[in-house]
């Protein structure tokens, strides 16, 4: 219950970051607040769009999926659902790999760092750790 609640909270933080970057990408926000790094360089590079959709919007979809899974998995009826725990690990694992690839592009291809993107990548690492802890706890729990 607590772990799923933590995941929901982390998902909301992620949704806020992804929304901020998506709104910038579509022009609603004019300037990114970016005290460290070069957010504009990263978010205007050709790598900031995948299949015609901004990367930030893909992130938004992933965080919203996480929020839905965490909230559904946090209900009394499903709090011990191993299926949801596995789905959470799969989503977080995929997102960590994808974020790692994006961070690689920032460092070695675009040669600029977007602090919001790095924050999101770190957030996924924390989320994956919580998801793995959740799955392990449920796998150890006696069957009812």
């Amino acid at each position: 219950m607590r772990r799923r609640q933590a995941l929901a909270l982390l998902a909301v933080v992620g949704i806020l970051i992804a929304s901020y970057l998506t709104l910038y990408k579509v022009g609603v926000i004019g300037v990114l607040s970016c005290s460290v790094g070069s957010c504009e360089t990263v978010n205007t590079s050709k790598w900031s769009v995948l299949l015609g959709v901004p990367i930030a919007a893909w992130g938004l979809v992933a965080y919203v999926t996480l929020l839905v899974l965490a909230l559904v998995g946090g209900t009394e009826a499903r709090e011990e659902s191993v299926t949801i725990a596995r789905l959470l690990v799969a989503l977080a694992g995929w997102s960590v790999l994808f974020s790692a690839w994006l961070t690689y592009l920032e460092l070695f291809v675009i040669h600029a760092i977007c602090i919001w993107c790095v924050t999101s990548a770190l957030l996924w690492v924390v989320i994956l750790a919580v998801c793995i802890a959740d799955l392990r706890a449920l796998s150890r729990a006696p069957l009812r």
Partner: protein
Amino acid sequence: MANKGVDGGRGRRSGVVSKQRGNSAQRFYVVLALVAVAGAILIVRAARTPKFTPVVTTAPVTPAQAEGYLLGNPNAPVQVMEFADFECPACGNFSVITEPDVRARIVNTGLASYRFFDFPLPMHKNTMAASNAAACAADQGKFWEMHDALFRNQPEWNGEATSEPKKIFLGYVKTLGLDTDAWEKCFDEQKHQNRILANQAEGSRRQVQSTPTFVIGTRMIPGALNYDQFKAYVDSASKESRTAPVAHTDSIAKSPSK
């Protein structure tokens, strides 16, 4: 009987536990909602308040008239002005994604004329050079071609990418088939600096605070618009121009009247 009593006790306990869990879950949802609302407020504030101060320009030595760069019929029923910075990503997105439709369906069809005004922002290192590059292309009748090339290729010449944008601009000059020597002379002399500053001053006079900002008929609309929004403002201005021919264009728009 005894069993029943024990069961009853369990039932009460599980009822109490369930109620406590329910209260805990409710508290959690409240915290979650508060975090979401607080974050949303911060994002809305970021969208509304630009992070830069409005540009204050000193009057050029020989004041130039702020005429912008015209596209379309100057006598069209609706006059559109765009105040934009060549290095601003939102302006680039508008130029690449929305502007082709605006030109094809609104300007070329005679619904509106379109004037581009430079509004270079101080935080963008290469934007003034880009404005000069476009103004010098205008001398050879290719302002809009250079305008499109600059916006389309923003990541390769912006202040983050290079400190020598001229080398990259020269590539566009060649691609567009301009007279390179004439363009280079114009660019190096900053021949059109006063014209650019006049365009910028026009934006400051109109209290433009972010880029892009559009003036469509009587309304001033900050922020990049999508095509449907743009068309709605043009239709609204067109309706107004038929009923009230005298237009003043200094008001900030809330939304287009339907």
